[in-house]
């Protein structure tokens, strides 16, 4: 099985094991810390990228969002190894695409746009802010609200949970 399929399967398992509540905020991406950054907390908020139409979409109709990423308790990058900066990424669910968004720090940083139908937001430590390939430890991660668009077979009703 390819790494991408393994990752997709892992994501599906993570979703299946999580209580499926009505997703009432189409724009919030809670960010959960990994053990590498246990004290970190964060959330990304999706805003349509600037557009004369009020809502921004690509030519093929994908929503285009800026991400206002708010973080606290980030570790110093150097405390994790030879890293100099914390970087945010938009990542396709199968992990095949990592779109670097730019450097982040404690506080709110607005980055983007991101025009993926479904995506993960990943915060990692990297050597520089200009990296194009993810290499450092992941500190936080979260799912776009659209990740919750799943086939009905993932619904608790069909998993014996009510």
């Amino acid at each position, binding site marked *: 099985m390819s790494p991408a399929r393994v990752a997709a399967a892992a994501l599906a398992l993570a979703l299946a094991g999580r209580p499926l509540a009505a997703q009432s905020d*189409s724009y919030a991406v809670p960010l959960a810390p990994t053990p590498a950054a246990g004290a970190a907390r964060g959330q990304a908020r999706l805003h349509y990228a600037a557009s004369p139409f*009020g809502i921004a979409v690509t030519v093929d109709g994908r929503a285009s969002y800026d991400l206002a990423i708010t973080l606290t308790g980030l570790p110093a990058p150097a405390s994790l190894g030879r890293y100099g900066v914390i970087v945010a990424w938009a990542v396709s669910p199968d992990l095949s695409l990592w779109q670097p968004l730019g450097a982040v720090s404690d506080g709110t940083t607005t980055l983007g746009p991101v025009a993926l139908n479904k995506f993960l937001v990943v915060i990692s430590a990297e050597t520089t802010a200009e990296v194009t390939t993810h290499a450092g430890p992941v500190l936080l991660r979260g799912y776009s609200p659209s990740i919750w668009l799943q086939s009905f077979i993932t619904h608790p009703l069909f998993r014996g949970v009510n």
Partner: protein
Amino acid sequence: MRWLRLAAVVVPTAAAAQQAPAHRHDMPGMAADSMAMPIPMPAGMKMLPGLVGLLPGGGAFLPGAGLDPGGLPLAQPSRLTRVKDGDTLDLTAMLARREINGHTFAMYAFNGQVPGPLIRVPQHATIVVRFRNHIDLPSTVHWHGLRLDNRFDGAAGVTQAPVAPGDSFVYRVQFPDAGIYWYHPHVREDIEQAMGLFGNLLVDAPDRDYYSPANDEQVLTLSDLLVNADTLIPFGREDPDFALGGRVGNLLLVNGERGYALTVHRGAVVRFFLTNVSSSRTFNVSFGGAPIKVVASDASRFEREELVPSVVLAPAERYAVEVRFERPGHYALVNAVQAVNHYRGEFEAAVDTLGLVTVDTAAAAPDYARAFANRRTNAAVAAGIAPYRAAFDRPPDRQFTLTVQVTGLPLATVQFMSIDTAYYAPVEWVDGMPDMNWLSTGRQVRWIIRDDATGKENMAIDWRVRRGSVVKLRIVNAARSFHPMQHPIHLHGQRMLVVARDGVPTRNLVWKDTVIIPVGATVDLLIDASNPGDWMLHCHIAEHLGAGMATVLHVE
């Protein structure tokens, strides 16, 4: 339409839900069983088993019941009608035959034309329009976006009584602002507008340099029509059907026809005036990769012209865009969106070709390449907005919440909505579940504008402001409801600025009369309440309006 988890909702009893819509129709002019046709479903999807055999309650309606469409006059394309200050125009709503996709339908037309006559008029003119209603429903004419005398706004039940079939009404129509506007009935828009009663008003500014130079101008209406093979899907006679998501057609039309075609010379710059006249569909159109510059919207030019990849139009919105066709060849006018497949839990690209622009090898003259490359800053627009900036950041004067209540929907609909996919798309671009949508009517679905301060809803809201005041209105489109959906909110007779969305200030302002509010979003509007009278504010999804989603702003 989505499937949704039950939230703040009036939950129907199972018995009521089972009883509700299982009526057979006695549709005039058609066999009763003809209403039992399955409505078109998205590819690979079938009607829910629990819904098979059910029909929307309240009877069915199609124009020209009992008439042979072949005996009706064939609708003609829109013709340019130039008028000047003081002129009088006759406008007749009538039955007409339309040939669409090789099929013949009895539908409506203004003066025998679809779209209705393109009325081109100088800014600041006043004209008289003698409207005659020769269709089989009461009707009016609403002059969408115009800041005219309240008596002539055409809002049935607010500014005038509906014009009965065979009767007439005289409108006095003023044009204080330049740009692209449109007219349509304000009675059962879900039927009358969808069946062809719409037309554009193109208001010319005295300034010849108001827009950049262009080699051609095209006025296009975008709409859709719901058919099953050679049959129109009937409308709810007493109340709108498709009340949850609005009627989304499966034939996309430009100026009421399939297959729009335009031929231009190489390098031509074409200014398109686009109007979304559909009941519910939001469009995302582009021109085969040709660069698009957006220059104006509902009621003014933008502060700054911008290059855009595509043009997003919610129902009733207008945009003026300039497109340069640099090289010879074919440029497809397409509507490209991301549909939601609820069964597979995936987004799927949905692309419809609306037409084709053919660019020949002869060079366009004059060559406007340089003017097209220049993105204007419209100082006059910014200067006109400047006096309002002081109010941008002040607290809202009013806050409305948009939501919905349902009762008596089919049990299968309620059950399946309760096991939704846990995701609410901010914008529904297509109807993902037309069977459930079709079976929801205005009797079962009540769309709501709620005044947060008083709790009053829709027409019970007492909203009064003084003439000349600047009103900051915040509208929240609640995500937690039975069926959250985007709403194109239209305010009659005034102009407004969208000063912020979800707290993010708008960087490039334009005067609007219709604003799209996605699910879960908040918009801050600044209303220039300069025009006295009683003015409707409502959702321009025709079925949502028909299901109650309207209130009135009283400007005293």
